[in-house]
């Protein structure tokens, strides 16, 4: 679906340029990580100079920024929000909790590996990552976009059954009720 830079057509280059410089972020502020978003967006670190700004609803967002641990209860909503976003869409996992569970690695109610449930394009390491790290994560995502490698959405579509099986493993009833994802 997305090609690397050499085989991109001129339309793709223009589109990727626009996508790269206009990232509307839906910050899913679970856990403690949400506190790092405010300085990232406001005067001190000013993410808007890179074209990054907040989006209020998943329909308008490009990036799903997951800031912190996800319980079984919230991961359902995150998956739902992700499926409501429109292509092209990217996921940034933020903090160790999304990478390996962090300090909640043995909690009965907190998922450990976010990429088993959603296709993560960029991970930002740290507990907590500072705003500089967040911005570096975004810059990395921009690089991936311009190279045409930020293809998490395509991965999700290809391996939909695998992702769905993982999701159903933790919350079978909810995901049976959820509307079908096939766009």
């Amino acid at each position, binding site marked *: 679906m997305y090609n690397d830079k050499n085989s991109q057509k001129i339309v793709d280059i223009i589109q990727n340029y626009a996508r790269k410089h206009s990232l509307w972020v839906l910050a899913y502020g679970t856990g403690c990580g949400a506190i790092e978003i405010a300085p990232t967006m406001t005067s001190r670190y000013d993410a808007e100079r890179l074209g990054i700004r907040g989006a209020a*609803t*998943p*329909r308008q967002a490009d990036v799903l920024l997951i800031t912190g641990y996800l319980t079984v209860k919230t991961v*359902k*909503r*995150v998956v*739902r*929000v992700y499926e*409501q976003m429109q*292509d092209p869409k990217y996921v940034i996992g933020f903090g160790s909790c999304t990478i390996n569970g962090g300090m909640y690695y043995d909690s009965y109610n907190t998922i450990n590996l976010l990429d088993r449930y959603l296709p993560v394009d960029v991970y930002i390491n740290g507990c907590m990552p500072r705003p500089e790290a967040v911005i570096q994560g975004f810059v990395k995502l921009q690089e991936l976009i311009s190279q045409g490698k930020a293809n998490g959405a395509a991965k999700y579509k290809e391996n939909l059954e695998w992702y769905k099986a993982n999701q159903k493993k933790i919350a079978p009833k*909810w995901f049976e*009720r*959820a*509307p079908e994802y096939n*766009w």
Partner: protein
Amino acid sequence: MLTLILVIFLGGAILTWLGRKINPLLGDLLFLVSVILPATMFVMNIKVGDTIAQHTLLGIDLVWGLSPLAHLFSLVVVGLGVMLSIYSISYMRGKEKVGMYYFSFILSIMAMLGILVSRDWISFFIFWEIMTWSSYLMVILNGKKVQSIGIKYFVFSALGAYSMLMALVIINSQLGSFMLSDTFNNFQHLSPANQILIPVLLLVAFGVKSAVMPLHIWAPDAYSNSPMGYTAVFSGALSKMGVYGLVLVIISMTTQLPAGSLIRIIVAWLGGFTAAAATLWAITQDDGKKLLAWSSIGQLGYIVTGVAIGTPLAMLAAMFLVVVHALFKGSLFMAVGAIEKQTGTTDFKEVNGLIRKMPVTFISSLLSIIALAGIPPLAGFVSKWMLYEALIQNHNYLLVVLLFFASTAAFLYAYKFLHGYFLGQEEPEWAHVKEAPMSMTIPMLLLALTTFVLGTWPQLLFNSIDSAMQYLGYDATNGKLWTDSVLFSQWGDKVALQPVLYAIIAVFLFFAIFLYFKGRKATRYVTTKDISTSGEIPKEWENLTFKVNFMQPFERAIEPFLKRQIEKYYLGFGKGMEALFDFTRRIYTGNGQTYAIYAIVFLALLLIFRVSLFG
């Protein structure tokens, strides 16, 4: 011929009532025949002329004829009557008291035509009373709240009838003739007191029917309580009889008065206040019927203002709005009736998301609402534009702001109406709802499309209005205020309606097609449950539509205005009267000794004041 038509109406009414008793289908058939046949005869055969029929009743001449003004109003009556009769067949199916409904329906159509053809006050009054009574039967037809609603309508109608009767008595005693033309021509010969009294009494009589501000109390309840098939007639045609009377009084009487301009300014401001206050009340309603009822009162306020201002442009606007209001309000009431028929309720809070279930109803409602809000390119705009231009050029600048406020606030209830019924989430509770039958949707769609046509080609209607206005003594307006769908004001400003329409259609089509074809294959329909609400999946039974306290922020802003209800003053007045009567009753104690004391006191007072009283 005219007599024959009215007799067919009358006979048809009775026959329908009887036929309904024998066989419902026969009743339906007879109903259709006895509305459509005489209506067709009326349109085909009755031409504008001074005297068409003449009878003598108890030594009084009854003269019937059709003036150009009455011809304009008769178009509304006949058109709405035929449409609503087709609509009513389906609407009333399966309801109670259908025979009574048919009877009253035909009778009020007959009475309205009778009023319009009357050339003398006696037949005018007789038909007026027939109209009032037949509509009263409709108001109390469903048998709910007869005590409060029926009484209100009855009291105000009686008030109107008595003041009209009083005016007629004065007219006859002073002029010795019951003819309308005699009254208008010899108006100068009346004494100055009567010259004020007669118009005021008649204004009260007609103001009741056209629901002008202090006399409007009966209207919201009466409109919303009668069957929807009839309410369209009620609001579209029957209230226009009041406007017809107002036109006669204001144009033919008050223009001959030195104090007439004062009366007209007062009436115009009353109309303006009616429009504004009724709009605010319409916003607060949660029932579609009530909302439309208040909205009708507001629109009649515009008409009354236009008539009272009385410049050619204002008159043109008012007459145009008379017809257009009948069209779009008829269509809206029909839509509410269709929703009531299909879902069993008209409450905004209960029913929602019907847009995919009842598309035709939605389209006709949408067109009518756009016409109501006065948005180009529909017909409401034409009259609104002319009315504002007339008011500004007549230096009624504060009145124009009041009306502007009313028409802007009308967007609120217009949206509330559409959102309440058609938009919002689709509920499994209403999944079974189907589109209303063709006989209901086609009349409402026809009326709505007519507003669309008149919005760009208003000259179709302006010709009749022009002849009606020439009958009232205005100059010809063709070429001065309008030519071929271009509207002019006296200052020379103009709106060319056809380019507007073409521009709107071109832009609309371009972007609609763009939106449709851009990424068409990737786009698919999802239900209204699939919305972005915090990642939650709404359950089947969860209704997330925003319904309760829909206009609450605005209601909070206008709270000081809403506190002042005229109804409360009337109730206070009624309570005061009751107390007075109570006091009077207490005087008559039924005790002989008390009466004796009264007599003695009376005699004593006589003795004391005999000098001053009898000299």
